[in-house]
């Protein structure tokens, strides 16, 4: 950051919002036409990055808790920086941004500001952001977004999610179960098996889907039991059976895949289930 420019001066260089008028009248009021990338880098992003960690922390300090547009220049600058430092050659600057953002999480930072930081870490974060995100995983307000960001980051995310899942109660358990499935974390299987018999239907459905995508043959009985139920859970249990069979087939466990297809076919004998039986038949045919 040049000595003559304060952070506020740099952020103020983001163009003002359109005021409307012209042929479109008021329809274009409040919209932003940003500067071209080379100008944004020269006039805003590089000078802010030159201010190091303090400048990033200062930028976060300019965010308002209520997203009513007053802080749009700071939000635009922060997001632009997060995108910019993901370029090749900007690795050092990226590390500074991740460190500065991660350090704002938890503590006394207001929840709406933490949410913005978590969303930005979905853009810029990598495994260096994981330690800052992990403590949020049992927070019912910021937690779902922290889970989302960790799933997006992937590298290093499975372990903290698994650990949080082992402790989780309430709504966060559902988010963590889904994340374990999305990350393909086989070490989470014991927790997923437990969740697959939970009283909460969404949790059961999601855990069975996760086990099916992981190819856990243990889940076959549970999924097939669900396929004999009714309603939404049945539809999702049938899907879990088919996914499980496909995963087992891909892993060359022909016997287990054949078993799932055959039993699902038997469980779906009604007229309305002809399409499920057809799906099983196609699966069996592909198995040879």
């Amino acid at each position, binding site marked *: 950051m040049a000595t003559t420019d304060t952070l506020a001066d740099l952020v103020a260089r983001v163009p003002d919002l359109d005021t409307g008028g012209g042929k479109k009248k008021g329809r274009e009021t*409040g919209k932003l036409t940003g*500067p071209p990338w080379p100008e944004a880098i020269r006039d805003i992003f590089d000078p802010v990055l030159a201010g190091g960690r303090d400048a990033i922390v200062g930028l976060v300090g300019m965010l308002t808790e209520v997203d009513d547009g007053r802080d749009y220049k700071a939000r635009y600058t922060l997001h632009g920086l997060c995108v*910019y430092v*993901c370029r090749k050659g900007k690795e050092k600057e990226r590390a500074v941004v991740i460190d500065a953002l991660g350090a704002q999480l938890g503590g006394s930072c207001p929840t709406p500001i933490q949410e913005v930081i978590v969303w930005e870490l979905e853009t810029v974060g990598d495994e260096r952001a994981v330690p800052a995100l992990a403590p949020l995983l049992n927070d019912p307000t910021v937690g779902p977004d922290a889970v*989302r960001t960790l*799933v997006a980051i992937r590298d290093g995310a499975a372990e903290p999610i698994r650990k949080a899942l082992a402790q989780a109660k309430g709504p966060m358990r559902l988010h963590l179960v889904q994340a374990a499935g999305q990350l393909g974390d086989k070490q989470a299987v014991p927790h997923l098996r437990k969740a697959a018999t939970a009283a909460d239907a969404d949790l059961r459905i999601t855990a069975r889907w996760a086990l099916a995508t992981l190819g856990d043959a243990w889940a076959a009985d549970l999924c097939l039991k669900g396929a004999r139920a009714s309603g939404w859970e049945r539809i999702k249990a049938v899907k879990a059976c088919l996914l499980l069979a496909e995963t087992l087939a891909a892993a060359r466990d022909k016997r287990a895949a054949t078993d799932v297809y055959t039993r699902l076919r038997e469980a779906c004998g009604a007229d309305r289930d*002809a399409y499920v039986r057809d799906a099983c038949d196609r699966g069996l045919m592909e198995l040879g």
Partner: protein
Amino acid sequence: MARSIRQVTRRGFLAGSAATAAGLAVVPRHVLGGEGHTPPSETFGSALIGCGGRGPGTHSDLSRKHGLATRCLAACDVHLGRAERFQHKAGSSCEVYQDFRRVVERQDIEVVAIGTPPHWHALISIACMEAGKDVVCEKPATRFIAEGRALAEAERRYNRVYQVGTYGRFGMSRNETNRQMRKLMLSGLLKPCKGRYVHRRGLKVKQWSGRLDVAPEPVPEELDWDLYCGPSPVKPYHPPRHGGTHRWYWDYEGGGLGDMGHHKFDPITWLFGKDGTAPVEVEASAPPASSEVSGMWGWIKLTYADGFQIVIESGEWGEPTGLSSVRPTADDLSEEATKQLAALPEVKECVGFGEAVKTRQKAGGNAEAAHRTACIMHLANIAIRTGRKIRFDPNTEHVIGDPEADRLAHQPMRAPFHL
């Protein structure tokens, strides 16, 4: 070249599809639908999920455009007022729902029209196919690339009929010259292909870029805001997030490009045989994007593996590319390649949704084709949002060498919603 590509009007399409429908024999569904279907009803139980905006039109198109006799059994919207308004038009057999899962459970509903915002398109389409239903879904088919693969997988796994709500490819396929072009491009004999399609304007870039000066308000009583947000993060309720202006927000769509792009490029992917693959390189000219809303851009260049290019110019920002369209031609083929081309099977007209439902064929705008067209807009928006040139593998459907950009192609969803 652009002039030679016949633009199909809605009226023109209706005339064509009505003629197709009139030519179809009425065949009992226990014969057509395979073993297990109850005979013989020509009236389909239908539902509309997403009753605002284009939703009612999409449902009425089931009969008007697709020639299906329907009895509307369900109107579903996260905004109850919208569902009730549609119910009044649909008649006494139609019940109102706020949660699409309750509609999907109903076994008497066979065909579903989906008119929700795009962040729900793939999930609801997939759920309907999982429940054995056929689907017409408004464009764009998806909000990001991984959704499209899951959609195509569901269509394949359950062998259901899916049609995205844009129909330019149907008119395109009725023209013999266009069918010959598709045949040439699908043959892969043009190596490298020097063809280029340049599209200028008409993508409502400024109109559907987002406002940044909107303050949050209390959620209206009739709206289930949590369910509206669904797989996307729950954000404060800014009124434009719900309604037609949902197009502004990355959480729900992809601006004018994401929305109008499906209309503009679906006929093009059909014509040039690119509805079974995706671009391998994408570059955009645009200012840094907002984290929340779509904004301005100038041009996008998308290059396919064979060298064919699609160039899109907004005409609303920055300098034009100066490029013009180049029509691929069989004149460039060797004598041997010309013989090989002649030996290939002829390209057929696209099958309409109504015919596909009755005869269990793939519809022209099937999930794979819709997904591949949607990839154009998604990849373009990834290039715009990252400010980086994107390399993409059409087989694995991952961005190559840029994991941060790949996050936009494979976005996590909020539980309990997953692909």
